[in-house]
Protein backbone atom coordinates (compact mmCIF):
# COMPACT_ATOMS: atom_id res chain seq x y z
CA UNK A 1 0.00 0.00 0.00
CA UNK A 2 1.37 3.35 -1.04
CA UNK A 3 1.16 5.85 1.82
CA UNK A 4 1.38 8.90 -0.42
CA UNK A 5 -0.55 8.84 -3.68
CA UNK A 6 0.42 11.39 -6.29
CA UNK A 7 -1.75 12.35 -9.24
CA UNK A 8 -1.57 12.60 -12.08
CA UNK A 9 1.31 10.25 -12.71
CA UNK A 10 2.11 11.92 -16.05
CA UNK A 11 1.25 15.41 -17.27
CA UNK A 12 2.15 16.94 -20.62
CA UNK A 13 1.11 20.54 -21.23
CA UNK A 14 1.93 23.54 -23.40
CA UNK A 15 4.00 26.47 -22.24
CA UNK A 16 1.84 29.09 -20.56
CA UNK A 17 -0.76 26.68 -19.17
CA UNK A 18 -1.55 26.27 -15.48
CA UNK A 19 -1.48 22.95 -13.70
CA UNK A 20 -2.03 21.35 -10.33
CA UNK A 21 -0.57 18.13 -8.99
CA UNK A 22 -1.83 16.38 -5.91
CA UNK A 23 -0.40 14.37 -3.07
CA UNK A 24 -2.92 12.48 -0.96
CA UNK A 25 -2.86 10.14 2.00
CA UNK A 26 -5.13 8.67 4.63
CA UNK A 27 -2.37 9.26 7.20
CA UNK A 28 -1.48 12.45 9.06
CA UNK A 29 1.94 13.96 8.42
CA UNK A 30 4.02 16.14 10.72
CA UNK A 31 5.43 17.86 7.68
CA UNK A 32 5.37 17.48 3.95
CA UNK A 33 7.90 18.42 1.31
CA UNK A 34 7.98 18.84 -2.44
CA UNK A 35 11.06 18.02 -4.47
CA UNK A 36 11.83 18.38 -8.18
CA UNK A 37 14.09 15.90 -9.90
CA UNK A 38 15.59 16.46 -13.35
CA UNK A 39 16.95 13.60 -15.50
CA UNK A 40 20.30 12.33 -14.28
CA UNK A 41 20.15 14.39 -11.10
CA UNK A 42 19.05 13.93 -7.51
CA UNK A 43 15.84 15.46 -6.12
CA UNK A 44 16.08 19.11 -5.09
CA UNK A 45 13.96 20.42 -2.24
CA UNK A 46 11.41 23.08 -3.26
CA UNK A 47 9.43 23.63 -0.08
CA UNK A 48 8.47 22.25 3.34
CA UNK A 49 5.00 22.78 4.81
CA UNK A 50 4.28 22.00 8.44
CA UNK A 51 1.02 23.69 9.46
CA UNK A 52 -2.43 22.51 8.37
CA UNK A 53 -3.86 24.94 5.82
CA UNK A 54 -0.46 26.50 5.16
CA UNK A 55 0.14 28.07 1.73
CA UNK A 56 3.62 28.85 0.46
CA UNK A 57 4.61 30.53 -2.77
CA UNK A 58 7.84 30.17 -4.68
CA UNK A 59 7.63 32.45 -7.74
CA UNK A 60 5.05 30.75 -10.02
CA UNK A 61 4.70 27.74 -7.72
CA UNK A 62 2.06 27.64 -4.97
CA UNK A 63 2.10 24.87 -2.39
CA UNK A 64 -0.75 24.07 -0.04
CA UNK A 65 -0.93 21.72 2.94
CA UNK A 66 -4.38 20.37 3.72
CA UNK A 67 -6.13 21.42 6.91
CA UNK A 68 -5.94 17.89 8.27
CA UNK A 69 -2.30 17.50 7.19
CA UNK A 70 -3.14 14.48 5.06
CA UNK A 71 -2.74 16.00 1.62
CA UNK A 72 -0.97 18.68 -0.35
CA UNK A 73 -1.10 20.31 -3.75
CA UNK A 74 1.34 22.07 -6.01
CA UNK A 75 0.00 24.61 -8.47
CA UNK A 76 2.16 26.04 -11.25
CA UNK A 77 1.04 29.18 -13.05
CA UNK A 78 2.11 29.87 -16.64
CA UNK A 79 4.29 26.78 -16.89
CA UNK A 80 7.61 27.05 -18.69
CA UNK A 81 9.80 24.37 -20.32
CA UNK A 82 12.23 24.80 -17.42
CA UNK A 83 9.53 23.45 -15.10
CA UNK A 84 9.83 20.04 -16.76
CA UNK A 85 10.80 17.34 -14.31
CA UNK A 86 9.63 14.74 -11.81
CA UNK A 87 7.80 16.29 -8.88
CA UNK A 88 7.95 14.25 -5.70
CA UNK A 89 6.07 14.79 -2.48
CA UNK A 90 7.54 13.38 0.71
CA UNK A 91 6.08 13.30 4.18
CA UNK A 92 7.16 12.67 7.71
CA UNK A 93 4.51 10.54 9.37
CA UNK A 94 3.31 11.71 12.76
CA UNK A 95 5.19 9.72 15.39
CA UNK A 96 7.71 8.41 12.87
CA UNK A 97 10.97 10.22 13.43
CA UNK A 98 13.69 10.48 10.87
CA UNK A 99 12.07 8.64 7.98
CA UNK A 100 10.67 10.41 4.93
CA UNK A 101 8.04 8.58 2.88
CA UNK A 102 8.01 9.48 -0.80
CA UNK A 103 5.18 9.44 -3.30
CA UNK A 104 5.78 7.93 -6.73
CA UNK A 105 5.99 11.28 -8.40
CA UNK A 106 4.35 13.27 -11.18
CA UNK A 107 6.35 13.49 -14.38
CA UNK A 108 5.66 16.92 -15.88
CA UNK A 109 6.58 17.85 -19.44
CA UNK A 110 6.10 21.44 -20.56
CA UNK A 111 6.28 21.76 -24.32
CA UNK A 112 7.46 25.02 -25.92
Amino acid at each position, binding site marked *: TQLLEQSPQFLSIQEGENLTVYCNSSSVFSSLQWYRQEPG*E*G*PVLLVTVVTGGEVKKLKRLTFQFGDARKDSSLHITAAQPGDTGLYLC*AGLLTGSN*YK*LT*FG*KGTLLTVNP
Partner: protein
Amino acid sequence: DTAVSQTPKYLVTQMGNDKSIKCEQNLGHDTMYWYKQDSKKFLKIMFSYNNKELIINETVPNRFSPKSPDKAHLNLHINSLELGDSAVYFCATTGSAMNTEAFFGQGTRLTVV
Protein backbone atom coordinates in the same frame (compact mmCIF):
# COMPACT_ATOMS: atom_id res chain seq x y z
CA ASP B 1 32.11 22.44 -4.85
CA THR B 2 29.40 19.75 -4.73
CA ALA B 3 27.62 19.49 -1.37
CA VAL B 4 26.84 15.76 -1.63
CA SER B 5 28.99 13.81 -4.04
CA GLN B 6 28.69 10.17 -5.01
CA THR B 7 31.08 7.97 -6.91
CA PRO B 8 30.83 6.40 -9.34
CA LYS B 9 27.99 8.01 -11.30
CA TYR B 10 27.59 4.91 -13.46
CA LEU B 11 28.41 1.32 -12.58
CA VAL B 12 27.91 -1.66 -14.87
CA THR B 13 28.83 -5.03 -13.45
CA GLN B 14 28.11 -8.71 -13.77
CA MET B 15 25.85 -10.77 -11.55
CA GLY B 16 27.62 -12.19 -8.56
CA ASN B 17 30.18 -9.40 -8.28
CA ASP B 18 30.76 -7.27 -5.18
CA LYS B 19 30.77 -3.48 -5.59
CA SER B 20 30.88 -0.32 -3.48
CA ILE B 21 29.40 3.13 -3.90
CA LYS B 22 30.88 6.06 -1.99
CA CYS B 23 29.25 9.21 -0.69
CA GLU B 24 30.83 12.31 0.79
CA GLN B 25 29.19 15.48 2.10
CA ASN B 26 30.74 18.82 2.95
CA LEU B 27 27.65 20.37 4.57
CA GLY B 28 28.60 19.41 8.10
CA HIS B 29 25.32 17.51 8.41
CA ASP B 30 24.84 14.87 11.09
CA THR B 31 22.60 12.46 9.21
CA MET B 32 23.17 10.58 5.98
CA TYR B 33 20.93 8.24 3.99
CA TRP B 34 20.92 5.75 1.18
CA TYR B 35 17.85 5.65 -1.06
CA LYS B 36 17.04 3.34 -3.95
CA GLN B 37 15.05 4.63 -6.96
CA ASP B 38 13.61 1.92 -9.16
CA SER B 39 12.78 2.05 -12.85
CA LYS B 40 9.36 3.54 -12.03
CA LYS B 41 11.06 6.40 -10.18
CA PHE B 42 9.86 5.23 -6.76
CA LEU B 43 12.31 6.47 -4.14
CA LYS B 44 12.64 4.26 -1.07
CA ILE B 45 14.84 4.67 1.98
CA MET B 46 17.34 1.89 2.67
CA PHE B 47 19.54 3.08 5.54
CA SER B 48 20.20 6.11 7.69
CA TYR B 49 23.18 6.98 9.85
CA ASN B 50 23.29 9.71 12.48
CA ASN B 51 26.77 10.67 13.62
CA LYS B 52 28.14 7.38 12.31
CA GLU B 53 25.47 5.31 14.03
CA LEU B 54 22.87 3.28 12.16
CA ILE B 55 19.37 4.57 12.99
CA ILE B 56 17.25 3.28 10.12
CA ASN B 57 17.62 -0.11 8.51
CA GLU B 58 14.72 -0.91 6.23
CA THR B 59 13.93 -4.38 4.95
CA VAL B 60 16.99 -4.64 2.75
CA PRO B 61 18.80 -7.90 1.90
CA ASN B 62 21.87 -8.32 4.08
CA ARG B 63 23.95 -8.37 0.89
CA PHE B 64 23.76 -4.59 1.31
CA SER B 65 26.06 -3.26 4.02
CA PRO B 66 26.47 0.45 4.74
CA LYS B 67 29.55 1.81 6.45
CA SER B 68 30.14 5.26 7.89
CA PRO B 69 33.83 5.79 8.66
CA ASP B 70 33.14 9.36 9.77
CA LYS B 71 30.31 11.87 9.81
CA ALA B 72 31.09 13.11 6.30
CA HIS B 73 31.11 9.73 4.58
CA LEU B 74 28.60 6.95 4.05
CA ASN B 75 29.50 4.10 1.75
CA LEU B 76 27.35 1.24 0.47
CA HIS B 77 28.83 -2.15 -0.23
CA ILE B 78 26.80 -4.72 -2.14
CA ASN B 79 27.76 -8.39 -2.23
CA SER B 80 26.72 -10.99 -4.79
CA LEU B 81 24.94 -8.54 -7.05
CA GLU B 82 21.66 -9.64 -8.61
CA LEU B 83 19.79 -8.41 -11.67
CA GLY B 84 17.11 -6.91 -9.41
CA ASP B 85 19.67 -4.66 -7.76
CA SER B 86 19.77 -2.56 -10.92
CA ALA B 87 18.51 0.90 -9.95
CA VAL B 88 19.70 4.40 -9.18
CA TYR B 89 21.09 4.72 -5.67
CA PHE B 90 21.01 8.14 -4.03
CA CYS B 91 22.91 9.38 -1.04
CA ALA B 92 21.27 12.18 0.92
CA THR B 93 21.95 14.23 4.03
CA THR B 94 19.95 16.23 6.54
CA GLY B 95 21.17 18.63 9.21
CA SER B 96 20.04 16.29 11.93
CA ALA B 97 17.92 13.17 12.35
CA MET B 98 14.97 15.40 13.31
CA ASN B 99 15.36 17.54 10.19
CA THR B 100 13.94 16.01 7.03
CA GLU B 101 14.98 18.68 4.53
CA ALA B 102 17.23 16.50 2.48
CA PHE B 103 20.10 17.29 0.14
CA PHE B 104 20.65 14.58 -2.46
CA GLY B 105 23.67 13.52 -4.42
CA GLN B 106 23.53 13.04 -8.19
CA GLY B 107 22.91 9.33 -7.89
CA THR B 108 24.75 6.21 -8.97
CA ARG B 109 23.11 4.28 -11.78
CA LEU B 110 23.88 0.62 -11.13
CA THR B 111 23.27 -1.85 -13.94
CA VAL B 112 23.74 -5.54 -13.24
CA VAL B 113 24.10 -7.71 -16.33
